[in-house]
């Protein structure tokens, strides 16, 4: 079992009230009685938009909202009623809510200071700030907004009356969110509105295993992390101009219009967030994808003039749905919406929300698979973290890394050739190749288990996405396909609609694979060990032991007692073989076996026949600190080959010994040696040094050099036209 590292906000234990505040306590008792008796509304008991029987989650935080979009001021305002159940074993004495849009209020926010006024290459626009303002906060009908404290993107409220364990409270907000100009996931660009992370959202309240420490996992909106919340049902009515087309989480259940404006009602059950997008230019296309339990409606809201990309989106989502069914469990919702932001709202692209994804605008041909990879990746998030509810803030690698791993599986399904990222212009690049490039040589490396918000932008990106994907690939290659499938399904089934931590994931994988993988997790997740194996050197020596004086017939060799068994065997074998060879056809007595005359240069084959044997030594070196069982393939001059394994047990027994030496005594010299020839250890940072030849092969060098020369020659010829 790997040690856990949770980060819970500590709650101060309340002391017993003194005598003088009994009347307050009595009042509090009335309030608490009121809180605990808040009835669950009917929409919590319904199951809308599901393809499987519900409820799927515990529906801890459910929202009913009525909001209005002012397309001129880009403000979304209205009312939100949160039905929150204290699902833990201890009372909650305070509440925390995320007001994510406050991250764009000014340039002093945590987000802007950490991300540096940009996200994924999109710059924060001038005069495009945003914020969420709460003008009313009622709990059980009692106005509490005066007691609420807002710091950056967190609203905290100390309760006079704790919310008992198991109690449900009704919390009403009147709020207004001024959307920023879009650059970091949500905002507006002209008439396009990406309304994400837009309402006061309650943080996650939980206790440790023994219910000793309880608190809210509430974080500011950091530059390099995302979000975390509870599952619940959403009943959202949006009021927008009539010309706007709206795409949202869930399914549409109602619409009314007076010609100028319209109100649309959406329902989404067992989800942990709600986002919606509105743009009058959206062009809608619908398709269905069939899997083992029925059909999923894919609703694509595209930009005008991009109809040629519709089929690419649909196929990507199809591959992701089918892959997710295999790896995790069937997608349980009836619909998914795919949003294409306009070119001036690229910051809203490449994002996931429950039952809704946003894609990238890509002008690239079919051979460049960034569109497909993006759609597969964002759809992969439907499982992790949107259904298997990992904490995107504290455990980003469980979110992005596992989804990056899923992306590789999904695009492998679409492109069996292996050219999953690029297959165009004669080039072939796989997505794992990109992960390899992104990860190798990351200087500011931190353990994967580091809290994500501590990482700088580049390290966060390389480690949570690329490194995790390569780590999982290395694990998959070690376990094999079948075990990996089983391991992932074990994890998915166990933690669907739960909130797993890294230890939960690692233990579930070990359980599903049927083996203890602590050795792997300790290195890959909790350390910064670098993986690099190489074939350092190959030596071939003509075997000349047979020449000299020999006594025939051969007598058994008597060895000194201090020699170990391991040292005896090859030496004894050599001596006895040489003696026997020298005595062939010779009578008893001492004979000299002379070396043949030195003649003109001969080929290896001729020499091999003449000298009969070669002593060869292959030096394998582990340059990095990461230990992993690796295969070794040694090829000989006569076309034969031998396979060996440098096992984990060998390496861990003496980790300070970085060399493994292989000895060969054969009729042909070693021609080539490769360690991990199939790159099973995807984390290996250098792949060129995994193999070594004994004689230079200039054909690839000539081919590349002459290609470059031809290209350069063409360029110069054309410039002199």
């Amino acid at each position, binding site marked *: 079992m790997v040690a856990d590292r949770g980060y819970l906000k500590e709650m101060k234990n309340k002391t017993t009230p003194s005598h003088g505040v009994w009347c307050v306590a009595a009042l509090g008792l009335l309030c608490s009685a009121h809180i605990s008796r808040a009835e669950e509304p009917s929409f919590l008991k319904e199951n809308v938009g599901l393809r499987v029987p519900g409820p799927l989650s515990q529906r801890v935080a459910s929202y009913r909202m009525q909001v209005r979009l002012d397309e001129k001021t880009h403000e979304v305002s209205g009312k939100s009623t949160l039905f929150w159940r204290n699902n833990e074993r201890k009372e909650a004495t305070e509440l925390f809510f995320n007001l994510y849009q406050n991250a764009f209020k000014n340039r002093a926010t945590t987000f802007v200071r950490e991300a540096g006024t940009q996200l994924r290459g999109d710059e924060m626009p001038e005069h495009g700030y945003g914020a969420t303002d709460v003008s009313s906060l009622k709990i059980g009908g009692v106005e509490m907004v005066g007691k609420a404290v807002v710091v950056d993107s967190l609203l905290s409220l100390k309760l006079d009356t704790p919310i008992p364990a198991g109690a449900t409270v009704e919390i009403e907000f009147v709020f207004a969110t001024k959307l920023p100009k879009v650059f970091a996931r949500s905002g507006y660009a002209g008439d396009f509105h990406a309304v994400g992370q837009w309402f006061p959202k309650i943080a996650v309240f939980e206790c440790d295993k023994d219910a000793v420490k309880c608190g809210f996992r509430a974080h500011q909106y950091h530059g390099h992390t995302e979000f975390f919340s509870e599952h619940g049902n959403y009943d959202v009515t949006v009021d927008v101009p009539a010309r706007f087309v709206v795409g949202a989480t869930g399914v549409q259940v109602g619409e009314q219009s007076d010609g100028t404006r319209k109100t649309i009602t959406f329902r989404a059950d067992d989800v942990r967030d709600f986002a919606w997008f509105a743009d009058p230019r959206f062009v809608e296309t619908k398709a269905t994808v069939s899997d083992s339990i029925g059909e999923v409606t894919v609703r694509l809201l595209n*930009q005008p*003039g*991009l109809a*040629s*990309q519709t089929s690419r989106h649909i196929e990507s989502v199809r591959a992701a749905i089918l892959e997710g069914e295999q790896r995790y469990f069937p997608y349980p919702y009836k619909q998914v919406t795919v949003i294409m932001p*306009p*070119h*001036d709202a*690229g910051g809203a692209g490449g994002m996931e929300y429950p039952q809704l994804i946003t894609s*990238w*605008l*890509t*002008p*690239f*041909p079919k051979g460049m698979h960034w569109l497909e990879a993006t759609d597969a990746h964002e759809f992969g998030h439907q499982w992790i973290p949107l259904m298997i509810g990992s904490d995107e803030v504290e455990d980003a690698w469980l979110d992005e890394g596992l989804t990056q791993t899923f992306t590789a599986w999904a695009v492998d399904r679409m492109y069996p050739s292996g050219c999953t990222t690029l297959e165009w212009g*004669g*080039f*072939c*690049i*796989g997505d794992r*190749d990109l992960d*390899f*490039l992104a990860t*190798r*040589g990351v200087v500011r490396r931190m353990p994967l288990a580091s809290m994500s918000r501590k990482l700088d932008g580049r390290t966060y990106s390389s480690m949570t996405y690329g490194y995790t994907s390569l780590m999982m690939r290395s694990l998959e290659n070690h376990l094999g396909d079948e075990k990996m499938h089983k391991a992932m399904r074990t994890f998915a089934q166990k933690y669907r609609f739960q909130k797993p931590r890294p230890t939960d994931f690692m233990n579930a994988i070990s359980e599903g694979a049927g083996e203890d993988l602590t050795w792997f997790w300790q290195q890959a997740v909790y350390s910064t060990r670098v993986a690099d194996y190489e074939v350092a050197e190959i030596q071939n020596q003509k075997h000349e032991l047979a020449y000299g004086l020999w006594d025939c017939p051969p007598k058994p060799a008597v060895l000194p007692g201090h020699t170990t068994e391991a040292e005896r065997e090859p030496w004894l074998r050599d001596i006895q073989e040489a003696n026997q060879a020298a005595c062939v056809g010779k009578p008893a007595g001492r004979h000299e076996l002379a070396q043949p005359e030195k003649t003109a240069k001969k080929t290896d084959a001729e020499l091999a026949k003449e000298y009969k044997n070669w002593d060869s030594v292959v030096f394998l070196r582990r340059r990095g600190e990461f230990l992993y069982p690796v295969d070794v393939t040694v090829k000989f001059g006569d076309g034969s080959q031998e396979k060996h394994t440098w096992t984990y047990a060998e390496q861990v027994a003496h980790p300070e010994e970085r060399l493994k030496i292989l000895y060969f005594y054969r009729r042909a010299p070693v021609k*080539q040696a*490769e360690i991990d*020839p199939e790159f099973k250890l995807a984390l290996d940072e*250098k*792949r*060129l*040094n*995994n*193999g*070594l*030849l004994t004689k*230079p*092969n*200039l*054909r*690839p*060098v*000539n*081919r*590349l*050099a*002459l*290609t*470059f*020369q*031809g290209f*350069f*020659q*063409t360029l*110069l*010829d*054309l*410039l*002199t*036209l």
Partner: protein
Amino acid sequence: MMQTTSNFPSETGSSRAGFFDILRTSFGRLCASPWLVLGLWFLSLSTTFFALLPARVVLRDVLSLRPLAERIARGRYDVGFVEIIADNTSAWRAAMTVAIVVGVAFLVLHAMLSGAVLSRLRSKDAPRHAPTGTFLVRAAETAVPMVKLDLMFALLVRVPLVLLASIAAGFALGWKAVTGLPWDSVVARLLTVAVCVGFAWSVASVWLNLARLQKLDDERLSTWKSICAGFYALAQRPAWLFGMALAICSLTVHAAMWWFGRGITARLDAKMLVLAAFLVRQGISLLRTAFSLWMMAATCALHERNQAAQPQ
């Protein structure tokens, strides 16, 4: 040896007949100077070979003992290129610097030889024709003025053409982010711009050669006046028609050679037929050189035609 004296139709003859006549005449002159074609092609081959020698040394050091090199060379592990470059950055920078320096030197050398090349491709009756054996002497005589002419032409015509091409591409895309357009639309718009720019580049080459010829005919002309005279010569009807036709020929044939050559050599490279790919590339380079010289010879013929048409 083919007759190299040109007989141009009269001014009242058809332009088309005149154009084909120019092509025929110039082809004859080209065939009369096979060593010129071979020499320039060999210059191109040897220059690029030496320019990339440091790069070849780096490749040899990095790849010759690595089994993965075979996969990289066959195009089955393209990411390997990044590993090669990233792990040997200094060596690559040095190699590329050498290549660029040698490339620039080649372009200057080509400019220096252009006077001698044009002189060789002129009619034997032309006063500045360079007979066999005087090529290098002629090159030495005309090197400086030709280099000055090429530099000024590059500044005044080529560089602005490149800038105009960028602006044209921007207009073609509507000055909006290219991400807002589908691939087919981007290709269609940029290809249109590329064809127009290619055509303009080819016309500029005809203009440059006419300017060179003006300078060769009258050494007293300044560089600037030579360029103007070349433009004036091109602007005369039917010279501008012929000039544009030459440009279209040049653009079409070079594009076709590049397209087919690329297709054939890619297949040979993938099968590691290194020698075959090299021979195909050099064959195409030879054809390209020959065709370029043919166009230069045609420009010479055009120039002579212009002169013949002028009143004495």
